[in-house]
């Protein structure tokens, strides 16, 4: 199957049904391995056992930005190429991105309390991630507020493209401003500064959460396609009922006007 064939929703649904079991198995395998290695990872010489929070905090923080990136590409697909699945992909990704961002905020807060002495600080990194979370919620609300999916999709696509400016701000906030959040220790010039005992479980957990996102995203896209089919059939049903009512009403009008003439 060529990639272009997936633009057809019916073929896309068939593709999802084929790959979903494999994706579920890959996700379970990666997360199980990651959790096992995270449990075996040694304590950090400064942070002690709280370093274990990193294995879920960092993948979720990465995904919070990555999902917005996916939505940005999908928004370009909606506005520029008018790809039939682009809008579906963006809408299906938003609740997932919001969940990953929420998890990054909560686990970061739970990690911050023992390490920084506070659950929350209004510094650049934390505030920009909170803003990202609010933008996800705004997009979800926009999709729910506008009934016509194509109109909602175009408005959401523009909002997504504007919001994409926040992604580099989040990434470089630790370099541009004075912040209590630590700098990059994996994706940085000169390679990761982290010991392999932590890096390997972290990368496997990141791969596991990425596989989880891919699995849930494809499943949510499938649901969205079905939802639009239901909507389209309901409109067809309503239009049939209207036309039936019109043909029923027409003879009655004639009879009424005829009676009036008598």
């Amino acid at each position, binding site marked *: 199957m060529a990639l272009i064939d997936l633009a*057809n929703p019916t073929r896309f649904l068939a593709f999802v049904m084929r790959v979903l079991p494999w994706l579920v198995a890959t996700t379970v395998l990666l997360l199980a391995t990651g959790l096992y290695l995270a449990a075996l990872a040694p304590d950090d010489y400064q942070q002690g056992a709280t370093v274990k*929070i990193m294995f*879920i905090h960092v993948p979720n923080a990465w995904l919070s930005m990555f999902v917005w990136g996916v939505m940005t590409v999908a928004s370009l697909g909606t506005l520029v190429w008018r790809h039939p699945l682009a809008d579906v992909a963006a809408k299906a990704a938003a*609740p997932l991105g919001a*969940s990953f961002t929420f998890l990054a905020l909560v686990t970061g807060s739970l990690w911050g309390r*023992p390490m920084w002495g506070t659950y929350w600080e209004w510094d650049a990194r934390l505030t920009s991630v909170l803003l990202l979370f609010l933008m996800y919620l705004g997009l979800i609300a926009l999709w729910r507020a506008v009934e016509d999916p194509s109109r909602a999709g175009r408005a959401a696509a523009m909002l997504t493209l504007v919001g994409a400016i926040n992604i580099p701000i989040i990434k470089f906030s630790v370099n541009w401003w004075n912040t209590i959040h630590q700098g990059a220790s994996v994706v940085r010039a000169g390679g990761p500064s982290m010991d392999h005992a932590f890096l390997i479980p972290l990368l496997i957990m990141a791969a596991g959460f990425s596989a989880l996102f891919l699995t849930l995203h494809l499943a949510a896209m499938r649901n969205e396609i079905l939802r639009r089919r239901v909507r*389209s059939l309901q409109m*067809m049903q309503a239009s049939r009922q209207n036309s039936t009512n019109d043909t029923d009403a027409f003879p009655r009008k004639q009879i009424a006007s005829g009676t009036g003439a008598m």
Partner: protein
Amino acid sequence: MMLGPYAYFIVMSYAVAAAIVLNLIGWIAYDYRSQKARLRALEANGIARRSNGAAELRWP
């Protein structure tokens, strides 16, 4: 595996992550069943999509 004096923060982090992920999985599974049931109900009322063919290339 000893979690030390900060066990509460570590356990809470993993518990919240598990709850959110399970919630997402449950919501998506429920949504799928719900949409399939609505489609079946419409088709039972004689409202069906056009058969496979040219119509399949059109949205939705």
